[in-house]
């Protein structure tokens, strides 16, 4: 097979490259492909053409299965020499429909053609960039290009008044580049053909667009689909690549045995408009200006478009984390607030409990006022009677018995101390103090309470006994509050035995160790005992069985004991009556 290039020999055009690639890809048998070129960009003179004809004739006549002229110059060359290869089938891979030369119409020849629409390119420019004032047309200097240029000038007259044209043609590539680089806003470049510059230098298939793109500050529009992606904005492009592909397919059919005269020439439908997203974006051309059915290629996905799911997942993760962290922070803050609140409440509770305990003590002592008066009246009676007896002895006969007077004074001093003790005990219980834990002798504290209630016991006809083991360890506690508990239990015991016969009204207190670390105080009465379900109920606030009771005593007592890390409970005795126990921790050594 001979591929007859229009330009080159090297580099080949985009269509030619596509032809070769498709042939290799879609035809499974080896093809010996030869190349020749009419080299239209350099050699357009008849003398050269004659030499080429001779050369081709001598080298290839009768030896080819297929001749494939690429693009118009080669096709035109073939049309001028229709007998060059005899009956050898000819596939023209790419020709403009308007430029099909009459001599090409032989039975051996078939072709792929496309419709070129130069004016359509200008309309495309004006549609995308309506503010364009100047369109700079760039053409090379080859005969082929001069022909194209002339055609364009004629066609573009229709745009007179809408936009001005500048024609850059026949210039060197450097000069063309410089002129394009100097363009400013309002101008656009339309690169038509650049296969050879004004110096006669043939240009690589993409060289023109590449070099202009490197310097241009304005949009570049091109004719060919092969230029898309290399710097042109796009439009309804001439299908130079597709012509190559379709030409190769026709060639394959012929190589496979189809007669070329049976193959209808292929005329490509107009390409759908296609654009380079990067250029649209670069020049701020909104996509809604593109004609309907446009395809936008080279879309550079924004980070969001490219990594939408990653980003969404990351954001979701961050949000989740943020929510989690916020939650944790809130929780921590809430915990701190609750902790502070708890401490404040605890402090208030302690204070309230101390207040309540104090009030209860005052109330209890108020209740005890009769027996306290009795307790005070005994020594006062003795003092008064002793003093008056002494007065009478003295006034009756002078100081006759100093021993007697000394005894009287001794008794007066003792009774005075006794009365003072009663007052001290009462005052110490009425004292308003918070929990003040210190090592103390529990048995002694209990004994003081028993003494304080001595008169009450006498008045109620209750016998009270205290059994304390000797040498008990000190406990850690608040004396006043623990005495309050004892006082309360003792008074309850007195009440419990109220109904019993006088001879059976007995209350026994015991102070003894409870394990290694606690001391236990037990207050047993000989009353009727508690009903089974009351053993715990009695500790509820406002629970009382007494007509004048507050129902606070045991509740406060339990809170006091628990504040000491001890325990207060009640058990019915095996025989009769009830025993209330409370424990208090032993003070550390």
């Amino acid at each position, binding site marked *: 097979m001979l591929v007859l290039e229009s330009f080159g020999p090297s580099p080949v055009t985009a269509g030619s490259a596509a032809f070769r690639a498709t042939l290799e890809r879609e035809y499974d048998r080896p093809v010996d492909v030869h190349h020749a070129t009419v080299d239209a960009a350099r050699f357009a003179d008849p003398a050269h053409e004659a030499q080429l004809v001779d050369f081709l004739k001598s080298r290839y006549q009768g030896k080819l299965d297929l001749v494939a002229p690429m693009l118009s110059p080669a096709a035109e060359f073939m049309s001028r020499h229709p007998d060059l290869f005899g009956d050898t089938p000819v596939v023209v891979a790419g020709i403009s429909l308007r430029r099909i030369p009459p001599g090409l119409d032989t039975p051996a020849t078939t072709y792929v053609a496309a419709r070129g629409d130069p004016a359509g390119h200008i309309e495309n420019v004006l549609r995308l960039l309506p503010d364009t004032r100047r369109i700079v047309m760039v053409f090379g200097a080859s005969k082929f290009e001069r022909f194209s240029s002339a055609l364009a000038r004629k066609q573009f007259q229709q745009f007179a008044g809408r936009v001005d044209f500048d024609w850059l043609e026949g210039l060197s590539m450097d000069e063309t580049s410089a002129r394009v680089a100097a363009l400013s806003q309002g101008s656009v470049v339309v690169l038509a053909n650049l296969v050879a510059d004004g110096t006669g230098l043939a240009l690589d298939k993409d060289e023109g667009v590449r070099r202009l793109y490197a310097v241009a500050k304005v949009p570049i529009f091109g004719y060919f689909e092969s230029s898309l992606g290399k710097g042109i904005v796009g439009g309804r492009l001439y299908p130079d690549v597709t012509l190559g592909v379709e030409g190769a397919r026709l060639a394959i059919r012929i190589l496979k045995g189809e007669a070329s005269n049976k193959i209808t020439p292929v005329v490509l439908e107009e390409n759908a408009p296609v654009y380079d997203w990067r250029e649209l974006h670069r020049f701020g051309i909104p996509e809604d200006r593109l004609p309907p059915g446009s395809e936008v290629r080279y879309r550079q996905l924004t980070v969001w478009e490219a990594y939408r799911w990653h980003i969404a997942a990351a954001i979701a993760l961050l949000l989740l984390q943020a929510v989690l962290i916020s939650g944790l922070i809130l929780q921590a803050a809430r915990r701190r607030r609750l902790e502070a609140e708890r401490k404040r409440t605890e402090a208030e509770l302690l204070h309230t409990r101390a207040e309540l305990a104090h009030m209860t003590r005052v109330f209890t002592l108020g209740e005890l006022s009769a027996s306290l008066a009795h307790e005070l009246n005994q020594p006062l009676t003795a003092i008064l009677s002793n003093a008056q*007896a002494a007065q009478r002895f003295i006034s009756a006969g002078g100081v006759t018995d100093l021993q007697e007077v000394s005894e009287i004074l001794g008794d007066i001093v003792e009774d005075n101390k*006794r009365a003072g003790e009663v007052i001290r005990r009462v005052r110490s219980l009425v004292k308003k103090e918070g929990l003040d834990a210190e090592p103390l002798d529990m048995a002694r504290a209990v004994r003081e309470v028993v003494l304080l209630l001595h008169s009450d016991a006498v008045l109620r006809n209750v016998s009270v006994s205290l059994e304390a083991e000797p040498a008990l360890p000190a406990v850690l506690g608040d004396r006043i509050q623990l005495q309050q508990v004892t006082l309360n239990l003792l008074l309850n015991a007195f009440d419990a035995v109220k109904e019993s016969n006088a001879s059976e009204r007995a209350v026994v207190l015991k102070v003894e160790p409870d394990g290694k670390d606690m001391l236990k105080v037990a207050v047993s009465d000989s009353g009727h005992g508690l009903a089974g379900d009351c053993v715990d109920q009695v500790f509820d606030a406002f629970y009382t069985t007494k007509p004048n009771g507050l129902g606070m005593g045991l509740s406060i007592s339990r809170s006091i004991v628990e504040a000491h890390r001890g325990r207060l409970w009640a058990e019915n005795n095996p025989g009769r009556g009830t025993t209330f126990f409370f424990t208090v921790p032993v003070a550390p050594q």
Partner: protein
Amino acid sequence: MPGAPATTPRKQLIIAIVDDDASVCRALERLVRSLGFEGATFSGGQHFLDALSGPVPILPDCAVLDIHMPGMTGIELQQRLAGTGLPIVFITAHDDPVLRKQALTAGAKAFLRKPFDDELFVETLYAALSRPRDP
């Protein structure tokens, strides 16, 4: 200071003092002695009853009883003494109107509230003693 009975007693009258408070007992014994009587003290009702019916019984002319005492109360003791004709004076540090009425109804001569002035005690004692003893 009223009268001088302490200096001229025709007969040494015996005043029994029953009180569980030893100090009060001692003080009242001195007081009655300073008034010219003889005082005998007892720490409780049973103690006193035992002395009355012992092998060498004492014969008091008047009994001064505390109301509130462990074991036997003054009121119970009064009941036990009912019929003996012994004049009884109650002394109490705890003035209970119910007990006062009960005691006086049962024949007590007086009901004194501790602490009491010696003048009141003297008058009360004499008032109690002026009554003739039962035959």
